[in-house]
């Protein structure tokens, strides 16, 4: 479904991604784990077209994304929940969700999806008319995921959804991610520092160090891998 081939991305003279190749199959949950600054967020931003690779190909369902603007990439069916959630603080919860459906015109279906995200996260329907900035961290993460779901993406990119959240909330959010994947067949590309949680729900995983993919395997195998254990699982 998504294919990265030999992608090199630079920030000025610093190379953030070094010949990164990876693939995501339809219906999968894929995780990319690694330390701070390994290039995980850059990978997602490259897929979304916010940063441009210096060389290499990013293709979604056979279509080269290199020539597309970020908004056109969203139109192909890719939506990202970026690091730090990036809720529009002065827009209401409802308006944040409306913006998720920005490119859609099918009002009846948008309503259905709105009901769907409210069943996933009932708290959001109570907060509906509150400004996004007044929500707690966990609620903001729920809103960020819901907002992306409103785009009805076929590929959902998530950047550290567990960041700064209480373990119980993290648990809840990860359960809902598997539920979204199971119920809607939404393909999920999850970037995480919380390797244990991510590998538990993922089918396959990639490990990134200093912009290089160093390991790629089934998630269950990575959980048992000695290097992964010592470096990321703290075992």
């Amino acid at each position: 479904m998504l294919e990265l081939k030999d992608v090199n991305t630079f920030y000025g003279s610093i190379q953030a991604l070094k010949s990164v190749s990876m693939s995501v199959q339809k219906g999968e949950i894929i995780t990319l784990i690694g330390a701070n600054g390994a290039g995980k967020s850059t990978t997602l931003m490259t897929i979304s077209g916010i940063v441009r690779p210096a060389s290499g190909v990013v293709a979604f369902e056979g279509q080269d994304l290199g020539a597309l603007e970020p908004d056109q990439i969203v139109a192909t069916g890719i939506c990202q929940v970026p690091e730090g959630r990036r809720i529009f603080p002065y827009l209401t919860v409802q308006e944040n969700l409306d913006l998720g459906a920005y490119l859609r015109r099918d009002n009846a279906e948008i309503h259905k999806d709105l009901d769907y995200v409210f069943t996933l996260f009932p708290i959001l329907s109570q907060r509906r008319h509150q400004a996004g900035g007044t929500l707690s961290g966990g609620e903001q993460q729920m809103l960020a995921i819901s907002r992306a779901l409103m785009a009805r993406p076929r590929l959902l990119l998530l950047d550290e959804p567990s960041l700064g959240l209480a373990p119980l909330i993290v648990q809840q959010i990860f359960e809902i991610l598997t539920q979204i994947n199971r119920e809607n067949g939404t393909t999920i590309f999850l970037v995480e520092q919380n390797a244990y949680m991510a590998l538990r729900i993922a089918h396959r995983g990639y490990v990134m160090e200093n912009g290089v993919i160093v390991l790629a395997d089934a998630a269950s195998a990575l959980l048992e891998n000695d290097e992964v254990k010592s470096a990321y699982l703290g075992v």
Partner: protein
Amino acid sequence: MNYFLNLVIGGLTRGSIYALLALGYTMVYGIIELINFAHGEIYMIGAFTALIVALALSFLGLDGISILVIASLIAMVYSAAYGFTMEKIAYKPVRNSLRLSALISAIGMSLFLQNYVRLAQTSNFVPFPTLIPEMQFLQTLPVRINSAQVVILTTTAIVMVALTFLIKFTRIGKSMRAASQDKTMAMLLGVNVNRVISVTFVIGSATAALGGVLISSFTGQINFYIGFMAGIKAFVAAVLGGIGSIPGAVLGSFVLGLTESLGAGYISSDYEDVFAFAILIIILILKPSGLLGRPENKKV
């Protein structure tokens, strides 16, 4: 009492014109954090366009109000085209460089447009026809208000309501607010931010042109330099209200207009501009984010 009311009406009229201009400043700042110093020139170009159209139309024997409406609409479209083009050639190329570059580009654009109009038209004041006919019933009111002021106040009110509706409830309005809060996130949701910026310039330029046309038919004369002072004042109004905030720009404009009018009426009209800038300094000391501005929180 009557004197006071007259000053208030005068102040509100001024405030209306400032508001039509300040909207452009504040909306552009809200989205790309640029003080568009050439904004006053758009207002001046609007006035000149209307003048030319009005002269042409007067040969056709139309009455004042129809000329005013047609001339305003053409001026708005023409100025909007200027605003759109200006953003594309002077601001978009430097959008990702230092803020100072865009600011210098804006000042350059301002000087360019002033001198372009001076060379293409004239450096002298030219008379602007009185397009707004006298309304007899106004004579019977206890306060002195003329028809031009009535037209200015109502037009401004209509524009404000329409704009509030646009920003609050429409799809483009939501995308404008989203882009002003977080451009990257807006892009990640499929908002074409370049288009949003263009729309912002188009709307701001059109309202500025409308202000230019209305005030010119009130004052009766224009030259290539009228945009400069009006632009600076509207900028003061926008900062006063809290730059980036639309209700703030409107409030700031009326505060500024009333201060100038009352100050000129009760103290001395020679100090009119002094009052305008004094109130700016006072507000900046007491509340740097402006009357309705949000405290600046730097994005990480």
